[in-house]
């Protein structure tokens, strides 16, 4: 599926998409949180881009590790440790692989989700980024088991993440800042789920366009 250079391209594209959606993410967070999710993500991913520009990565694992460190150090808020942990877990799952295939992609998404669960003491159905990420890797697993090709797997992940994010509107928040609203969080999309769907979508789009 991808070598180091392509992974760098994919992450760069994801960072651009986050930047384009800064305002949108902030508005989502404004409705049920403190209105900074777009700002946090844009700040964090601008440092990811800086890391990507500096280059010098040994392996995909190294790439994810350094990107994850950039996220941990610059996103702040709740999403910083969560996306950071997700990237660091992805890195650990890759060990010293030099390129990754679609199976690897799904297993790093799964490892990322496990990391978020651990760090956030959270699980599916609590109206968080997990509600985009878990359906996404599950859809990927299904596609793989049906023998779909890489592009199809990536598109299945993208579509499921998007649907998962949209469906968070039907959930009552149990974790994060929006949980303070209880029932009042219904009818709003979770910003972290939205940014997760954007990132997974950007990765799929990048490889589709290669």
């Amino acid at each position: 599926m991808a070598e180091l250079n392509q992974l760098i391209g994919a992450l760069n594209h994801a960072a651009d998409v986050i930047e384009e959606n800064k305002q949108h993410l902030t508005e989502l967070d404004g409705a049920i949180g403190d209105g900074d999710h777009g700002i946090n993500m844009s700040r964090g991913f601008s440092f990811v881009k800086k890391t990507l520009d500096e280059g010098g990565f040994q392996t995909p694992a190294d790439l994810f590790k350094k990107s994850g460190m950039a996220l941990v150090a610059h996103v702040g808020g709740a999403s910083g440790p969560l996306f950071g942990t997700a990237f660091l877990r992805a890195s650990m799952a890759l060990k010293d692989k030099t390129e990754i295939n679609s199976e690897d992609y799904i297993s790093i998404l799964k490892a990322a989700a496990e990391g978020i669960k651990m760090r956030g003491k959270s699980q599916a159905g609590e109206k968080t980024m997990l509600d985009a990420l878990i359906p996404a890797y599950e859809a990927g697993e299904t596609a793989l088991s049906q023998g779909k090709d890489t592009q199809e797997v990536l598109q299945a992940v993208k579509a499921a993440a998007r649907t998962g994010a949209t469906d968070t509107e039907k959930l009552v928040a149990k974790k994060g800042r929006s949980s303070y609203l209880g029932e009042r969080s219904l009818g709003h999309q979770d910003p972290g789920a939205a940014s997760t769907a954007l990132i997974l979508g950007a990765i799929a789009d990048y490889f589709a366009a290669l």
Partner: protein
Amino acid sequence: MKKLINQPENSLNEMLIGMAKAYPDYLTRLDNTNVLVRKNLTEQKVAVVSGGGSGHEPTHAGYIGQGMLDAAVAGDIFTSPTPDQIYEAIKAVDRGKGVLLVVKNYSGDVMNFDMAKEMAEMEGIAVEQVIVNDDVAVEDSTFTTGRRGIAGTVLIHKIAGAAAERGWDLQKVKETAEKAIKSIHSMGMALSPCIVPSAGKPNFTLAEDEVEIGTGIHGEPGTHREKIKSADEITQELFDKIQADAPIQSGDDVALMVNGMGATPLMELYIVNNKAHDLLVSLGAHIHRTFVGEFMTSIEMAGMSLTVLKLDDQLKSLLDDAADTPALKVIKK
């Protein structure tokens, strides 16, 4: 947005420099960080570190000094600081007796402090953490994020700081802080919103005759909105909510804090204090100490919060211990 700032993105940095210039005897900025550290750290004591998003001044750095904090980590406005920053603070103040982190219960703060704790522990530093969750406006539940930490946190700084200054060990300082956290309850309200400089517009709106009850310190929605009432009625409403949660018994010793959110004048806080005292006294409580002022603000939000801390003899004497910080001084008699 009408503010005395320069470029919004420089506000945090300029504020930290401005604080360091204002209090050179108390604190100094750790190079290349948003960490302010106590000058002349007391050797041989547990260090107490707190932090969180900025915009709550004088919290947190205002409480650096004798008998309170050894370092404060400033996040961006209303955004938790990152683990690397917290880790730098821990390393800077550890004197071999360990470090207590006082964290407000927000997912972001808890997770970032958690990661910093792990990083410090990997370096062999003993770190413990207490989570302040005094806001009774939010439902208490172990299945959710639970209650927010608000103004009561300042009194936890005072108690943990005094315990550390006495030379108690990390475990005892932590247990004492946890005991105080169990006994502290707060509830706030807002008359008007606040503006995060980089956002440039208010984070919520209220009609000219409306107030929000139960607001957090970042303008998070509260329990409900209602028509504005008299100060006495609003004080009663917040107090009843606290009382429902943690009933005051006749004979109880308490500390009372009336905290201004930023734009509400002291005059109004004293009017609220007048009523809050009456309510406590009518229940037979003994008010050991009263704090009226701006202790944990929400930039320029108008509004206030009440905090009631039940005291046993140990907590009373820790509150009475000397403290010498820019924003809170207790002179021992």
